[in-house]
């Protein structure tokens, strides 16, 4: 087990190094002003402004930013990751709850499934950029007692908006996965709907939920970062990407340090789901039922 885990870590690092090498290799052979064919730029520019050296990106992590109270860039990025991670986790949790709820309702009532499914599919085609300002505006109209809608809540809602979909689909498919015989068995025990749900359907749905949660994890990162950018939530990685991108002409490598932040967020979510998977699937057969 530890051996397999070690091999995984080594392979992961090797893959990172391979990407870095590919990047640097292209910088050597690629044209600085980009390759043109028939007036179209078909090859990306390999100049230091467009593609800074990998070591340059890492070096920028150590820069001191005077406007941020003299903190190093890596410190700024870490605190942005921490800020965004909380929004991502909240969005993910909300998405999982809503997705599972929808999955249960749809598996219970075929009519609801038929009516709701096209709407769910359609919901995922709405561009997030267009939706984000709307959510901010709707939230601003909410007045329940002393509750006021904060901008970060919009980011959470949009993270959930992207992550609920795979969970709903996975839950629906998983809840419907038990064989006719397994359902007859529960029926022969005069099991209630609720008993069948918790003793048979949910456990049987787990292998379908794991890949759904993986998708939901990265979707919530994407949702939160994009809505941080488009709704102007400050403090997170999304805002940092925009800020550094605006200064790209003078400090091109710095943009990539903020991209590292986004990558780390994605890896954290993937790691979280993988940890849950190895815990839950520990006592299960290795093959996933078709």
């Amino acid at each position, binding site marked *: 087990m530890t051996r397999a885990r070690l091999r995984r870590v080594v392979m992961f690092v090797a893959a990172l190094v391979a990407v870095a090498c590919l990047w640097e290799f292209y910088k050597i052979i690629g044209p600085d002003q980009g390759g043109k064919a028939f007036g179209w730029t078909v090859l990306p520019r390999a100049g230091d402004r467009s593609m800074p050296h990998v070591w340059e990106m890492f070096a920028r992590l150590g820069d001191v930013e005077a406007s941020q109270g003299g903190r190093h860039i890596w410190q700024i990025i870490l605190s942005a990751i921490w800020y965004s991670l909380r929004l991502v986790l909240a969005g993910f949790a909300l998405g999982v709850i809503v997705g599972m709820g929808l999955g249960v309702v749809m598996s219970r009532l075929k009519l609801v499934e038929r009516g709701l499914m096209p709407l769910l599919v359609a919901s995922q085609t709405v561009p997030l950029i267009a939706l984000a300002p709307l959510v901010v505006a709707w939230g601003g109209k909410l007045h329940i007692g002393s509750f006021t809608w904060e901008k970060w809540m919009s980011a959470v809602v949009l993270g959930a908006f992207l992550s609920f979909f795979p969970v709903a689909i996975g839950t629906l498919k998983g809840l419907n996965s038990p064989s006719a015989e397994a359902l007859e068995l529960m029926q022969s025990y005069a099991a209630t709907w609720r008993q069948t749900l918790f003793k048979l359907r949910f*456990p*049987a749905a787990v292998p379908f939920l794991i890949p759904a949660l993986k998708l939901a994890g990265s979707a919530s990162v994407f949702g939160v970062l994009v809505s941080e950018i488009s709704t102007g939530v400050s403090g997170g990685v999304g805002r940092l990407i925009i800020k550094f991108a605006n200064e790209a002409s003078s400090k091109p490598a710095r943009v990539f340090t903020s991209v590292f932040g986004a990558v780390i967020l994605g890896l954290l979510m993937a790691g979280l789901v993988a940890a849950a998977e190895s815990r839950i699937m520990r006592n299960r057969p290795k093959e996933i039922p078709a």
Partner: protein
Amino acid sequence: MTTLSIRSLKKVFNPGKANQVDALVDVDLTVEPGDFVSLIGPSGCGKSTLLRLLADLIQPTSGTVMMNGKSAHQARIDQDYGMAFQQAGLFDWRSVAENIELPLELKGWDKAKRRDRAHEMLELVKLREFADHRPWELSGGMQQRVAIARALASHPQVLLMDEPFGALDEMTREHMQAELLRICRAAQTTVVFVTHSIPEAVYLSSRVVVMSPRPGRITQIIDVGLGDARTDETRDDAAFYTKITEVREALRGIESTLAARGVDNR
């Protein structure tokens, strides 16, 4: 008291539609306590449908099923019967013991009592040391034994089985048949057993119910009369072969009438 009393039972699927199927007509059958009744017949004869009607998993079009003097519905609520299918159908996410505990859990037994009963059942099917194993670590025959233990966990008087050994190889199958007889005798269980195999039906049963399709009905009930003490020697017995021939001829009679009516029954 009569264990099963089936009167003028009829089941029609999709009544009034183009794909209407008369799955069962005019079924009358009485099963006494301790009986071992096999249902045998070509596919489409309604033997699995009959079993599901007894289990109250589907509702009859007309006629009645009484189990232990109660309606089939009440018998299901009271868990008067246990059920086993061709696939053992054990839950992967539960240990062997936890699988056997499932029906007891649903009835609200407390944990200690469930554990005790599960171990008692594992003892009965000779799988004591596999209590904490996972179902997929067991062979097909062992899984089927766990399924039988699960079916008998709440000590029902009736066991309904739908081709439970159909997926096993011949040797395992014969072994399981002997085991089933031993278990049912120990637990004093009445069994209704659906099968495709003539020797299996004869070896296990006190009575073999021969059924025929289109519409599904009972054509003959054969008393086996091989006594209660059946061993591997029974399989070499002349009386055993005589009964096999008798059942086979009853089934051939069905085949030839079907052929005469131009029905392909393969």
